[in-house]
């Protein structure tokens, strides 16, 4: 029964250690912004940050997280980079159905934190794990570039 640090708050999770973080977030803590897409870390819809790094929560056992800080889409706008990415997404209307976009934004924010001025290869490497069935890739690429040059 681990205690998780999620968006700055501690939560005691009454579930087995091998349960993936995704279900603790969605079904127990009630943070439904993080999405279930595939369950096998193939689509990126479940992406969250662990100490600022993008991870797939659908395969991450809650017992393995310890005291690392978990950040989800609900709180990423509280960070400077996250807010910048969200604004860039809205400015050029990246989003269509939106279901994958929590994961896209989390992946893009982690990319910009690690690589503030990413080139196309950096974007490919960081974002290729996030599927968008609506096909918003052209705008995702542009929005990341716009966020990178914004103040």
């Amino acid at each position, binding site marked *: 029964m681990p205690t998780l640090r999620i968006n700055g708050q501690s939560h005691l999770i009454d579930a087995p250690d091998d349960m993936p973080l995704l279900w603790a977030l969605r*079904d127990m803590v009630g943070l439904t912004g993080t*999405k279930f897409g595939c369950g096998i870390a193939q689509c990126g819809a479940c992406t969250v940050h662990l100490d600022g790094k993008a991870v797939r929560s659908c395969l991450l056992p809650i017992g393995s997280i310890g005291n690392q800080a978990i950040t989800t889409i609900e709180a990423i706008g509280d960070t400077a980079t996250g807010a910048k990415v969200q604004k860039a997404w809205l400015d050029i209307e990246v989003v269509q*159905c939106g279901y994958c976009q929590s994961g896209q934004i989390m992946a893009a924010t982690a990319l910009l934190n690690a690589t503030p001025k990413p080139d196309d290869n950096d974007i490919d490497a960081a974002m290729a794990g996030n*599927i*968008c069935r609506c096909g918003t890739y052209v705008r995702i*690429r542009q929005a990341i570039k716009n966020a990178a040059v914004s103040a």
Partner: protein
Amino acid sequence: MTMLAPIAPSLSRRGFLTAGAALGGGLLMGFRIDVAQAAVPSALPSALPPGVPPVPNGYSINPNAFVAIAPDGKVTFQIPQEEMGQGVYTSLSQLIADDLDVALDRVTPVPAPPVEALYGSPGSGRMGTGGSRSVRSFYTVLRVVGASARAMLVQAAADRWQVDPKTLRTDNGEVIDDANGGRRLSYGELAQAASALPVPTDVVLKADKDLKLIGKPVHRLDTPAKVNGTAQYGIDVRLPGLRIATLAASPVVGGKVAHVDDGEFKKLPGLQLVVLDDIVAVVGPHFWAAKTGLDALDITWDGGPDGKIDSPQLWQALRETSAKPGALGTNKGDTTKAEGDRLDVAYELPFLSHAPMEPQNFTVHVKDGGCEMWGGSQVQAAAWNAAAKVLGIKPEKVVFHNYMLGGGFGRRLDVDMVTKAVRIAQKVDGPVKVVWTREEDITQDVYRPAYRNVMSATLKDGKVTGWSHRIAAGSVAVRMSGKPLDGGLDRGALEGATENNYGVPNFHVEFIEAKPRAINVGYWRGVAPNNNVFASESLMDELALKAGQDPVAFRLAHLSSTPRLKAAVERVAKEANWGSPLPSRVGRGICAQFAFGTFIATIAEAEVDTSGHVRVRRMTSVIDAGRVVNPDGMLAQVQGGLIFGLTAALYGEITIKDGRVEQRNFNDYRMMRINEAPSIDVYMIENTEAPGGIGEPGVTAAAPSLVNAIAAATGVRLRRLPIDRDKLAERKTASL
């Protein structure tokens, strides 16, 4: 922005009184509709601007069903079409708001309740979001709604001030009396009085020059909530006492549960096992518990008669059926007498899964002789009725909370996810959210039919003189209705085949139903034009080659009777630098398409490496969709549609082994990823022709332009999708 919290109208024959309460008590105008009143008001204009489509005779429009205005001036629109990413909450809101004369930042769109008498499409009378039809169906209706509501507000102001309404004007939510010092009344102040006035019988739509929102690139109303995790999809429903279930349905169509060994399952605490005729479900406190429980079961299935079917048998059956004569779709001249050199070819497309990013799910609470349910559907009223039918109750006993969709693509035009969830919920005490795993979502889909299009054309002096096209496939209409086709013809299967854009003098199209065993077919984004445009535009390229002509020049020479398509082809050739030199094993291919009421010309530029790997470098489209509501939204739909179509062309195929779908998740049912996505340029031709559909033209234009580009790059003509890289490897192409 507060929005997208689905309202929960308590439906009864008396109306939607609780909808008003859900909106914060500000119900002054709108939504207080008795279903029986629906047919009474009719606000049809006697004159329409050019290109604004007429409303069918007998269709009545009641603005009160669509517009509510609160005392503070906040405006709520009940939107009859489902938001599934295509931007319809925004475009339909633009249509109402422009003629109502309010800015979009005051507007909150919410899903309309499933009452077809009020919200059915003018064409069919049904509620359904598909076929790129939302704007086409509702363009005029919703402008009339806005104009009627505005006229009622102006009349209310005129009554208050005792002046002639003709002397008043409106501006962004206010009625203004310039003749009396510019005094003003807000819509919020007038709404109560306005709602009591008769609906006008003749209203005037704004002239084009006065439009402020329609045709302007506006920001979407649904996207702010989608970038911060607050947007709610069906799968996000949370309720007191909610349990979560996941399920395994028979992996073979028509199969049954034979035996369930629950020895290991029984060791797990807190779970409920539900075994139905063809479904096994496990209910638990959260998804992980339910999934762990389901995995602990050893289920034996009786596949029934289709349990031994494999894909090669299905292809064999389709090819045999496609050799038989079909039902006549259209005919002009006599193809048997067409002169010239003849080309006979056939094109084949595979079964495909929809794979929306939000797996299928529905939340249901069966209680008190009724049922409450939560989820996203492309067919609200059909979902509502389906739940009632399972329970053997009247639909009025079902309360349906409708949600935005995490992708539809045609998957949620079916209601199997509703009926399965309701059947499981019947066995559960309290509300239960039934969530499909991705594997269950892909293996239990209703699949895009496999197609075989048999073509024959004749060519004389560089002109096509004869064109025969036989479409063979399973009929989605038959599968959904359960009724046989009238005269063997599925009219819905003809779009993209029968238009005869190239003015061929002897032209013949027929359809033959080839119902596949072991697989249910469904509507899939792009529907019939997927295969018909692929076959037609591949054949035009093959004919251009045979005629020794450039593919663009060859098409232009045949497009004199289709000037809008001709203009799009000319423009796209220029924008994509058609004819400029390219490196070795790089080619360009064109597709000229008229479907969904929209003209689109597309050029793909693709590179094929020596191992046969295809990289799409660039896509360029020119689209003429007539009157456009949200130009930026249209560009987005074409961009995304092209990716959707390229994904299918490059990777998409569902195969059957022992009656079971073999693909299970995104590792073996591949999606295009950002590193594989080409650059995309989309250009618009603007005019005041009738609005065309925009959700699907990009999808169906992708594959033909890509295979034509591959042919240009390699000399290899692919007549079957997905592309087979073995056929494109240099060792093969070098020997040609």
